[in-house]
Every structure is written in C-alpha cells, then in structure tokens.
C-alpha cells in the first residue's frame, strides 16, 4: 500500500494488487453467505489504546468491504455509475451517494435489430454501507456515521454537503463495533490537474489541430476559488491531493477542501465498451489501413442490426457472419460504412498547401475522378442551375422575312463547401444540362391588328437540349472557403456551351429541336404569346421527364468541350441532380411551376432581333429564408441536416409526393417568367457569386461564403469530428471506377449525422426505423451510427507523422512508434495528450507487442487499449454544474489557426477542427461572433455557465445514461422532450446558445414537414431552420472537443470509511476514519484472461473465467490515509 499517489507514469506495484484481489475474494464470499457479523479483528484488552486499534481495524475492514462492493458492482465493464440525482432517484438514495446500474448492453443475438425499446433501467445498488436492504443487502444498525464534515469540504460548504452513511454492526468475540463506508465517484467531478505539464509534453508542442479535438487540460479556472490560479510547470503532476492544490494556489488550509464534490485530482478512465462488455478498439488503427481492406463494410443495416465485425487476434476485420449481401432496398440496405469513415479520417493527407494556406485540389480529368477514392470530397457541390429561355427573331435570308427562334442560356452555381480553398485543376470539366421544357408555346402574332399566327408549339422529345460545360481553365480556378461561384454561358457549339466564371448571358444557343412554327413575319408584326404548363405526359415514359440539371464527367476522358462531340464519351454520368418526374396531375408540378407565362409587354418582331428572355427554370438548393414574393427560392425545412451530404441534391427519385421529395432533397424546382430581363441568382462583382445560407439576398442572411463542412488538417482525434464526414451509406461505385458514387443511400438523405441526434421528419418521434414507402419511413442514421461508434471505438490518434499528411501547421513529425515510445517512457505525449500510459507491461515490452518497426501492428487494434487510460475521464452522468462548467471550459483561451497560419486565442471556441480561416468575403472584415455561416462559435463565460446548468437539468431528467450512445442519441422513450434531441443538443438550445437562429421566421415546425410524420420537432425547445449551419452550435461540436474525455461510467473512486469500537453496552470507546483512492485498471481480477479478451473473443466460444465474469477488471488502491475527526465529524 502506498502512502501517496504515484506519478501517473510510475508503474503500479503489482504484487500488492494480487494480495488485495485475494482478500476481496475471501471477503466477498463472506458477504455472500451473510456472515457479516464476524470480524477478523482480535483485541486482547479493553484499554483505550486497544479500543483505538480496534476502531482502526474496523475502519480498515470497512475499506475492504467497500472495495469488495466496488469490485463486484463496478469491476465489470457493463456497469454504470451515477450520482443519486441523475434521473429518478432509486430507493433510499441520499445526496452525494453513488448509484450503480447495469449498462444498456447490445442484444445477445447479433441478428436482432436494435431499438430504443431495448433500454431498460436496472438499478443495482448504492456504493454506501447499509443502503441496499431493498436490493437484498444486509441491514444497517439504524445508526448513521458522518464521513465528511464541512471542515473537510471547501469554504462555504453547508450541512447539506456533509456525507452520512448507515452503519453495520461487527463483532469479534466479545468486542463490538460498527463500520460504515461511502464511495465517491471521482469520474463525475472535474479533474483540475488533468493533462501533462508543458514540461512533460516533450517532443510535441501544443497544437491547435490536436487541442481542438482533445483539450490538454480541464478548465480549472471555472472553479471560483481557482479562477486566478495558473498551474506552474510541474505542479499538475505533483498535485496528488487537494491540499497540494490549496498550497499551489495559495488558498489556505481549507481552499478547495480536502474533499470536494465538484473537483478532484484523481480520475482516470479505462476505455471500456459498456455495451459489449469489453475494452474499446482503436478506430485510428482501423481507418489508416489501405482502403481496399475497408470496402463493403457497413456498420449497420437500415433496420438497426449492427455489424459485429469478425476481428481476429491479428487485427484482421471482416463483416459479421452471416451478413446480408448488398441490396439497395428494405431492411438489409447497408448503412454508413468504414470506407466513408476512412475517407474522412485520411482526408488530411489529401490537403495541399500554398505556404500555410490549405486547399483541396481536384483531379485533372474525369477519368481520374471516377477512380479517385476521395471523389466524394474532391468535388465542388452543385448549389443551383438555372436555364433561361429567350425568344429571338432572325431574318431569313431566303425569304426576307423573320423567323422566331427559342434560345437557351445556362447558369450553374458551384459551391466549395469546405473551410479550406478548393482548386479546380485545368482540364477537369463539369457539365450540366437540361431536358425537355414542360411548356407549350401558343402564339398570338398580329399584323395590322389582326391575328396571323395562333399556332401551338411544344418542344420535341430530347434528352439533351443544352449542355453547359465548365472547363478547368488555365490557370485553374480556385474557390475560397464556403464560396458559391457562378458560371454562365458564353460561347457555344451546337448545344454544348462553354461557361465561364460570372454571369454573362449571350442570348444563348438556338434550340433546333423546338420548331416554334412562327416564320415569315414582318418587322412590324406584334408578338404576343403564352407559355402554358403542360398538364399531361407527351412522350410516354421518357417524355414524362421534365428538365434536368446534372453534373457529369466521363470515365472516357472528356477534358475539353470538343470531347462532347464524341457520343461515346458523352455517355457516362457520375451523378445527376434534380430529376423531375412528371406523372400526370403531379402535385409537385402544379405547385412549383408557374401555370402560365405571358410577356410583360407586347413588342414588334423587330424588337426581338436581340433575344428577349421569357422564362427561367430554377433548380436551387434550399436556403433558410424565402425572398418571396419574387421567389419562391426557399421553403421552411432543415437544409443543413436533410438532403444529401455529398451533393446539393441527388435526384428526386424516392418519394412520389412533392413535399417529401423536397425535404429529402432540399431542392426547389421552379419555373418563373423573366420579363425580358436577364437576372438569375448571380450577384456580386461580375455576377461571379451567389448568396446562400440564410437566403438569396444579404438582408435575408445570405452570404457568398457558407461553410458546411470542415476538413481535418491532421488525423482526427475525436469521434465528434466525424460530424463533418460525408457519411450516409454511400456503397456504390461508378461502373468504370473505384470511387464511391453519390447514388442513393439508405433513405432518407441525412447529413451531419455522427455525433448529432435530431429526430427524423420521416419518422414518428418514437421510431428509429420504418420500412421506407413512397411517402415516408427510412432510417434514423444518427441513432444507428452513434450506437455503432461511441461505445465500441476510440481514436488513439497514433498515425504516421512523416511524409504525406505532414504540413506546415501540424508540427508532429514523429513515427507511430516514436509517439507511443514518448508516452510509455515519459518523454512526451500522444497527440491526444490526455492519454496516460498504463504499464500493463514494461514500455519496451509494450513497444514490442504493438509495433512492427515504426508501424503499429494491425493486432494493436485489440491490444493497444490495455496500455491506455484517459486522464481526467469525465462521467457524463455527473450532476455537478461546477464540474460540467470546468469540463466545458477545457477550451478556454484555446488558440486556433487562422487564415495565413497564424495562431489566435479565443475565449471558449467550439466548432472547428483547429483551423478557423476568416472566410469573410471582405478580407478586411474581422471575424465576428455573429457570423452564422462561416464562423466557429466562441462562447462567453456566461454562455458556458448557462450551458453547464442546462446540461445538468438534462442529466437529471434523462439520466442515468446507460451507454455512450444513450448519452449522444435522442431518447425515443415516449417523452416528447427526450425524443426530439440528444441531451447535449437539448441543453445547448435550452441555454439559448442558438437563440439567434430562432428569432422570428427562423424556426421550423412539424407542420412544415407535413404530410411526413414530423418526428419530434414540435418538442424541440428551439427548432432552428438552420440547425447544423456553421455558426449554429451542435452537440457534435461540443463532442468534437470533449468526446475523447467523456465516459458513461467512472473508474476512479474515493472511499471513506468509519470504524468504531464499543463496550458491551454499546458505548463507543474509540472511532477511526480512513480514506483511499482506488483506481480500476484494464487487467482482470483473474489474470488468466488477457485484458483485451471478453466473452466471444478472441474465439467465438471464448468465455471469461467465472471470477472475471463476476468481478470484472481489477481495482487498485492508489493512496490511503487516516482521517482525523475534524475532517469527518467536524470536531
């Protein structure tokens, strides 16, 4: 037994642990048979000294009992600890008592779909003596022992903060006595000395790219007594008691107290998978493997069956067996897959640099694009396509009369969704095109006041009436972060038209497939006309298609416009958008397309010698606010949560009614009159940009720069960062290429699913899956993927820092081995500097086990976890507002990298991956907190306070959380307020942190999604339309910073015990109190099982030993001390 807390880097004494374990086993047996009345303490005399010795022996006995209880209840992985007020209070609880629950384990049968109904709350008992009679435990004596007095607590503590525990009676021969214990959950407190000292970080200096996803320290200044205190180098590691903190901070004897209900200096977490009952596995190891090894490995099926991958001892990963073959329908539809996660994880290696300015660069031709594994990312997205139809009169040389023609112009708006620049290389071409117009032209041409032409004219059936063609020009064009760029038609060749940056309509190209039936006209003839929306199909199945805006590239090498003359090269489409199906009497058509278009003014034929635009077709990505009555160019929905995460739109193909179509695709398809004026969404100088985000005008909140996805500039350290991943279940590839394509995913389309949890408008509030129909249903992808990820995986961040992926902003150039070597030998830290080395074996043996040369072995997928603890692991079941505030303040004064590579300090920044380029269209404009579309969120201390308070409210209302997924996900449990949002999101919204997104006209209601079920939207406290926008604070953005540090259970506890000695009449002769800090470690109590083993692994038939199955992983005593009566009873 060690008198003090060792350095976290010191190996623990293993022999002692064995002794403790054996003692526990013996004592627990005693408990089991109810022989609680016997004590091993033997006293020879009744003198005072002997009584004191007996009291101390009883206190030690109580400690052994408490540890035994703790080992039994919290040793197994699938156990949850929580404060008494996290959720409804179980029987007999008292403030500050620690409750134990069974975790929400995954179904025993892997073929069973997971549903919210699987969650059952099973209370196991209190970690307090004499408190579990209701659970079958031994009764207490009715007497109460005070274990914590106000004098042990910080200044200002009251009697309500004192800890009382029921006593048990013990006897040994004629010697009577009592014992009591109380176990404090240190994981539910903020560890104020968490993280390595600057002097101990060795080779790695603090880096915003790492710190934004894993803050090095907890925000101790959130604690009032410590708000002026700065740790000096070396102090954190020697702060092994609160007393040291008091000394370091010059707080006097009381200071933060010898014991504190909100803060601690002890807390380290084992990386446990409470759902599976095992250690978590290293997702970094898996996602850095060659992509071919990760192909066709979905994490779940549409209906909620999770893929329990077959993972061998050497780390090879295959799908569960059995696992259904890929299908694109029904319950077997594959969900989000490992390849999608890999692409996001490895994206940092694809970033290129102009000095300190990062950028993504396209491939140089479409063939390379189709084979580019990063195709989903190395793309601009399509925000809008508009086609303008113009009437023109042309003098016919052979007749000397005028003929009327229809001309067509195109405009395409391409968006860089990223927070880094995007360079489109020379040679890469995009195209967009339209199909037949759904309008019939009827003339009323007069000569001398009399009608001479009243013919009708419809466009002939043609699938390719216009192809706008954006070449990668020389030099390549570059879009700034979030920029929406407009390309308009210029020169043409038949129906293939080069388009260039900016909006410069040329009058278009002639539509030779539309005979307008208006020839032989005189210059003074007057031209009136009507364009009537068609009401029925004209050309059978194909002809029922309306107009169609697509972007395509060929696998056959289209690199310039002339290649389009090659019919074969023109045949392969990478993706397409905005397909408008048009069955008869389609409500969508009726509501979105103007029924009749007439000219603003009747003009002479001679006026039409310059083209007069008459009609515009719009295919626009939805924005927050409609600029009607000139629109509509927006509809109330959630464009940043719905729709394809990959494109602005991916086709109206699933649903047959117009509203589900729109909501699924977040696209408006409209037709409007043009009134003889060229005017599109193009704006800004030269019409080179367009507004989006809040609206299509600036005063509606529109901006030229709207960031919708952040690019990692270093390997991710937090699962929360995957909010930015393009992950929706893209499982298909291009026919001739290897890249994942954007073809349909398990419906409905959803984005920003990882780490967030909003109810799906396609489902009822209590559902997470319903068989998709033409009108509703589908999968709650957030609920599924959060279940698949948050408990089973963690990110070690151990990636190769050399070669590809190194960059001027990422200063860690160590090999994988060097990183772990630094951690194990105390010469540095991992990139996530909160990982501690747990000496399961010696550092050298660990290196041999985990590494092959400089490279982490595949087997480390399983083996690494036993060498790691999380310093300052925080139990999200905590109900301490102060602790939550300190945790949230971990980002206080954090530096981010801003444009140009400089570092800038922010107050409490959330929402970036460490890089916060100033993306304002005005380079002189300073970053502002009010920026909804491009900015991070830099919170104030008041906002942090409010958020901490709101989180505690949610924990008390929803707790205890029985798995990490249970914490991240909304709770479809029948209570509307829980069904709507995840707990953190509810807290964020209730704290008013997104209030500026919910002012008048900025909210959405369930009726906006009618006839869809509407999910739980009506129960959201502040249902913003722009939920998920860059400036909107999502819970995934909190989890990006805090995810690696949080857990749903604790592994560090402080036990306080009481023992007394009494005479035969029951009079107390002596009392004693002691305190121990105990730490759970990865090793099982029975070393016959390796830490990484669990039921079903490494072999399917594997079973843990009986002892390990019952008692789980070992608790070790880290420190012990006797207490005086002032700390306990107060005198």
């Amino acid at each position, binding site marked *: 037994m060690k008198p003090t807390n060792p350095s976290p880097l010191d190996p623990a004494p293993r022999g002692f642990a064995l002794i403790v374990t054996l003692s526990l086993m013996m004592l627990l047996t005693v408990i089991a048979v109810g022989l609680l009345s016997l004590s091993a303490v033997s006293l020879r005399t009744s003198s005072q000294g002997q009584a004191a010795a007996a009291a101390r022996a009883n206190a030690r006995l109580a400690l052994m009992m408490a540890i035994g209880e703790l080992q039994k209840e919290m040793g197994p992985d699938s156990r949850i600890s929580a404060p008494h007020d996290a959720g409804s209070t179980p029987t007999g609880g008292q403030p500050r008592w620690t409750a134990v629950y069974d975790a929400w384990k995954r179904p025993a049968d892997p073929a069973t779909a997971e549903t919210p109904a699987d969650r059952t709350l099973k209370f196991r008992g209190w970690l307090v003596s004499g408190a579990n009679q209701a659970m079958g435990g031994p009764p207490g004596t009715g007497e109460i022992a005070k274990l914590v007095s106000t004098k042990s607590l910080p200044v200002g503590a009251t009697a309500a903060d004192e800890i009382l525990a029921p006593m048990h009676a013990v006897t040994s021969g004629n010697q009577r006595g009592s014992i009591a214990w109380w176990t404090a959950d240190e994981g539910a407190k903020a560890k104020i000395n968490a993280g390595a000292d600057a002097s101990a970080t060795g080779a790695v200096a603090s880096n915003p790219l790492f710190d934004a996803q894993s803050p090095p320290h907890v925000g101790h200044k959130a604690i009032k007594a410590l708000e002026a205190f700065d740790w000096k180098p070396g102090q954190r590691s020697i702060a092994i008691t609160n007393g040291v903190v008091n000394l370091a901070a010059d707080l006097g004897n009381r200071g933060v107290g010898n014991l504190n209900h909100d803060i601690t200096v002890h807390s380290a977490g084992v990386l446990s998978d409470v759902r599976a009952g095992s250690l978590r596995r290293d997702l970094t190891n898996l996602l850095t493997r060659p992509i071919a090894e990760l192909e066709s490995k979905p994490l779940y099926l549409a209906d909620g069956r999770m893929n329990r991958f077959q993972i061998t001892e050497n780390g090879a990963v295959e799908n569960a067996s059995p696992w259904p073959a890929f299908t694109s329908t029904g319950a077997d539809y594959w969900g989000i897959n490992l390849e999608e996660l890999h692409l996001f994880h490895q994206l940092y290696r694809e970033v290129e640099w102009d000095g300190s300015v990062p950028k993504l660069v396209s491939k140089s031709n479409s063939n390379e694009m189709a084979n580019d594994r990063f195709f989903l990312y190395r793309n601009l997205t399509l925000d809008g396509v508009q086609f303008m139809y113009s009437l023109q009169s042309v003098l016919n040389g052979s007749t000397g009369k005028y003929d009327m023609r229809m001309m067509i112009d195109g405009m395409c708006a391409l968006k860089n969704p990223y927070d880094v620049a995007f360079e489109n290389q020379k040679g890469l071409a995009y195209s967009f095109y339209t199909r037949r117009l759904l309008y019939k032209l009827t003339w009323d041409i007069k000569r001398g*006041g009399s009608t001479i032409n009243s013919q009708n004219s419809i466009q002939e059936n043609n699938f390719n009436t216009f192809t706008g063609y954006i070449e990668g020009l020389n030099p390549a064009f570059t879009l700034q972060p979030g920029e929406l760029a407009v390309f308009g038609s210029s020169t043409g060749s038949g129906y293939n038209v080069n388009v260039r940056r900016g909006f410069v*309509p040329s009058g278009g190209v002639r539509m030779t497939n539309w005979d307008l039936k208006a020839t032989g006209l005189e210059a003074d003839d007057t031209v009136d006309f009507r364009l009537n929306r068609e009401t029925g199909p004209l050309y059978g199945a194909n002809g029922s298609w309306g107009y169609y805006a697509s972007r395509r590239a060929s696998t056959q090498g289209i690199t310039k416009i002339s290649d389009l003359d090659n019919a074969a090269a023109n045949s392969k489409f990478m993706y397409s958008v905005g397909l408008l199906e048009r069955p008869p009497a389609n409500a969508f058509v009726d509501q979105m397309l103007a029924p009749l278009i007439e000219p603003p*003014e009747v003009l002479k034929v001679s006026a039409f010698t310059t083209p007069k635009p008459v009609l515009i077709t719009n295919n626009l990505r939805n924005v927050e606010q409609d600029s009607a009555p000139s629109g509509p160019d927006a509809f109330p929905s959630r464009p940043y949560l719905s729709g394809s995460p990959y494109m602005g739109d991916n086709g109206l193909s699933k649903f047959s009614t117009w509203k589900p179509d729109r909501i699924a695709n977040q696209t408006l398809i409209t037709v409007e009159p043009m009134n*003889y*004026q060229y005017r599109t969404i193009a704006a*800004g100088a030269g*019409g080179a940009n367009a507004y989006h985000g809040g609206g299509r005008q600036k*005063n509606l909140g529109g901006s030229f720069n709207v960031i919708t996805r952040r690019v990692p500039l270093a390997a991710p350290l937090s699962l929360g960062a995957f909010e930015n991943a393009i992950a929706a279940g893209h499982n298909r590839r291009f026919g001739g290429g290897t890249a994942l394509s954007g073809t349909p995913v398990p419906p409905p389309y959803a984005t920003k699913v990882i780490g967030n949890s909003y109810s799906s408008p396609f489902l009822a509030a209590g559902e997470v899956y319903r068989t998709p129909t033409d009108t509703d249903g589908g999968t709650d992808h957030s609920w599924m993927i959060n279940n698949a990820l948050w408990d089973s995986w963690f990110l070690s961040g151990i990636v190769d820092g050399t070669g590809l992926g190194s960059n001027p902003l990422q200063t860690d150039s160590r090999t994988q081995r060097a990183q772990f070597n630094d951690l194990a030998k105390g010469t540095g830290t991992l990139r996530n500097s909160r990982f501690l080395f747990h000496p399961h074996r010696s550092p050298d043996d660990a290196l041999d086990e985990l590494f092959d040369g400089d490279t982490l072995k595949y087997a480390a997928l399983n083996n690494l976890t036993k060498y790691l603890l999380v310093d300052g692991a925080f139990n999200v079941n905590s109900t301490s507002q102060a602790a939550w505030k300190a945790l949230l303040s971990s980002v206080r004064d954090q530096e981010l990298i801003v444009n140009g590579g400089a570092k800038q300090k922010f107050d409490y920044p959330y929402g970036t991956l460490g890089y916060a380029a100033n993306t304002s269209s005005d380079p002189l404009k300073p970053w502002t907190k009010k920026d909804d579309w491009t900015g991070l969120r830099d919170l104030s201390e008041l906002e942090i306070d409010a958020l901490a308070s709101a989180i505690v409210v949610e924990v008390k209302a929803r707790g205890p959380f029985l798995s990490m997924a249970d914490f991240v996900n909304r709770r479809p449990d029948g209570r509307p307020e829980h069904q709507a949002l995840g707990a953190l999101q509810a807290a964020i919204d209730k704290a008013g942190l997104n209030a500026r997104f919910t002012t008048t006209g900025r909210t959405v209601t369930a009726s906006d999604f009618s006839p869809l079920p509407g999910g739980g939207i009506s129960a959201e406290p502040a249902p913003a339309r722009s939920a998920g926008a860059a400036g909107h604070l999502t819970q995934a953005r909190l989890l990006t910073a805090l995810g690696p540090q949080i857990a749903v259970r604790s592994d560090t506890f402080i036990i306080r015990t009481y023992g007394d000695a009494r005479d035969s009449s029951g009079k107390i002769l002596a009392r004693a109190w002691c305190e121990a800090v105990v730490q759970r470690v990865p090793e099982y109590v029975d070393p016959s099982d390796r830490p990484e083993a669990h039921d079903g692994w490494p072999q399917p038939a594997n079973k843990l030993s009986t002892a390990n199955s019952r008692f789980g992983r070992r608790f070790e005593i880290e420190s012990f001390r006797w207490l005086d009566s002032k700390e306990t009873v107060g005198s």
Partner: protein
Amino acid sequence: MSHRILLKFAAVFLGLLLPAMGQTGATKVGPRVKFICVSSLAENQQIILASRDEKGAWQELGTVKLRSSMITDWLPALDGELHLAVRKDNTLKSIGHFSYPAAARCALVALIAGPEKKAFETHVFDPAHIGFDKGSLLISNSNPQAAVVSLGTNTQTVGAGKEMVLKPALEGSGMYRLMVSYVDGSGKSVPCYDRQVSGNPDSRDMLFLLPDKALGMRVFSLPLFSSID
C-alpha cells in the same frame, strides 16, 4: 362650348380611334398613358380608364386588362384627374386615381396593389420631364426610408418617396451589378438586393423599391422596350 371641352372631346375622339390604328399607330397625338402594372388586384382584371366631368359623370377613355408584371399599350388620356375604375351595378367604381402631369405628352403610371388589394396606389411619371431616355433606369422609392442604389459604379441615394433617373455603368459584357440598400433609423445602410442584371441600350428600365416588412425593402423591375417618343 369652351376650348377646354373641345380639346377633351378631340382627345377622346382620337383616343377611341387608337385601338383601330394599332398599338403604336397614333402615339404622337394627345395625352396618353401607359400603365406599368407592378402588382394587380386580380389577374386579368378588366380596368376602365375614366374621368369625371364637372357634374361628376363618368367618361370612359379606354379599357385594359391588367395582371402583375405587365406593361400596357398606350391609352388615350385627358389632363386632370383620371381614374382606374371597374364596372359595378351599371356604374363605375374608382379603384385608383392619378393626376395627368400638366403639359406632358405622355405619362407612365405605375400601379401597385394596395395593402388589402382593394385599390391601386399610383405613381405618375412624365418621361420627358424626368429625362427617362433609352438606356437609363427610373428608380421609384415608395418607402419611408431612403435607398442607396448602385448601378455598377454609379451610386446614388434616392430619398423616401422620391424618384430618380440614372444611367447604369455597364460592364463590357453589357451587364451591371445592381445593388440596393435602405437606410435604417440609425442611418445605417442595410443591403437588401444584389444581382447581376442585363443593361440594354434599347430599353428604359424601371426599378420600384417597395415597402416590405420581411425584407426591409423589396425590389421590382421591368424593362420598357416600346417607344415613348
């Protein structure tokens, strides 16, 4: 019969002849108006242009069908107060009125549906008086706030309830950037419109700045290609 009545009679006579002469056949004779219907009370509503004589009797000058976003042919007019009327119970009911500008050869009358769509607000312009030439843009600000309008590099402030004619500074492409801001109560300029639009040397463009609670100011434009000479 006074000279004035004779003149009116002549004008009406000529006006009645106009339709038979084609829409542009008699554009240089007598007072005439062209309606710029920004927003209609009802689509394709039959409207009668009329005046009242000294005894209050209606005198019909012409009819036209109105819909939103349209420009009518020229209609014969008279000096003085004129009405837009609909026929109801065999009599006329005024749904808007305006004064023909004194000594104007012709007038452009913008019609904007009132708040409850029961009557028109009218804005009358004498194109010759305001210098509304081809290639220029007439800006009419119906708002209680001033507006700052940029036509390319040409920027001017148009006061509340005021009008102004400006020439856009065209780019080489013939397009220009049209930007409109309104001046809020604190004197701050609030951008509310920004588009790249086509300029046209053959047209006179009209830009109406209309009140709009949601947008602060709504921008509506129409080009006028027909001759007003």
